[in-house]
């Protein structure tokens, strides 16, 4: 909320995009976490497939709806931002299309898991699909460099220089941290209910209600 308030009310107007750029404080954190949630799921999928960690599969199933939700917010905010900036809400360019594929992957993972009555088999197949889909993450990241796209190249970089003024960068950074903690809280709530529902026949589950 601090990052968004700062960005919406106190950050200066952009010289080119005017005030429509203020969508960045929700759009950029959303797409960052859309990819990070998937990366987290891929690590869990590997743990489930290699070491048969049951909890890892539970975490994938809990994280997938959050990933779908935050990817939808990223796509939606980007589309609305595109109306005043590009003159169109949608363009089939590499960055937008690969992010749409990520959203479809999240939905596919949830649908696949939901379509099996044997939950152990569903966990295994879901993990395999997550591993297959991880190839899309570097494509999303590098799409603006590999192809000529309507979407602008990355303005901020973890390792390199940034082209954003500090008066806009600081609220953006706070927005990323804030949304991160919000999603972690949501993830804890979501995984708690899913773990309890899967382990409801165990004695320890009763101690946690």
């Amino acid at each position, binding site marked *: 909320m601090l990052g968004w308030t700062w960005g919406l009310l106190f950050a200066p107007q952009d010289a080119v995009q*005017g005030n429509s750029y203020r969508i960045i404080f929700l759009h950029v954190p959303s797409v960052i976490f859309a990819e990070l949630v998937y990366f987290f799921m891929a690590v869990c999928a590997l743990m489930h497939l290699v070491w048969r960690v049951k909890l890892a599969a539970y975490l994938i199933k809990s994280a997938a709806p959050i990933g779908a939700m935050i990817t939808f917010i990223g796509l939606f905010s980007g589309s609305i931002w595109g109306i005043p900036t590009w003159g169109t809400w949608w363009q089939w360019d590499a960055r937008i299309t690969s992010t749409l594929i990520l959203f479809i992957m999240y939905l596919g993972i949830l649908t696949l898991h939901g379509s099996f009555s044997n939950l152990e088999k569903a966990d295994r197949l879901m993990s395999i699909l997550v591993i297959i889909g991880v190839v899309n993450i570097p494509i999303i990241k590098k799409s603006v460099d590999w192809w000529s796209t309507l979407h602008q190249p990355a303005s901020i970089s973890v390792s390199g220089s940034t082209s954003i003024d500090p008066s806009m960068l600081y609220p953006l950074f706070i927005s990323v941290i804030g949304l991160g903690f919000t999603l972690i809280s949501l993830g804890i709530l979501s995984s708690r209910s899913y773990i309890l529902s899967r382990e409801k026949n165990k004695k320890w589950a009763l101690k946690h209600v």
Partner: protein
Amino acid sequence: MFNLAFKNFNEILDMGGHGIYVWSVYFIGISIIFISFLIAKKRIKEVQKKIILKNASS
């Protein structure tokens, strides 16, 4: 850096003609996140209720 970027409340709402885009994105985005929290909390309560009922009957 900490000066308000707008002169009055109407300017904040209008944002130079971009207010409809900016505010609709934040309203819908924050609503989706808030609803996700409500759903997650509701699910925990439902599961807890199921576990309590199951143990009470057995």
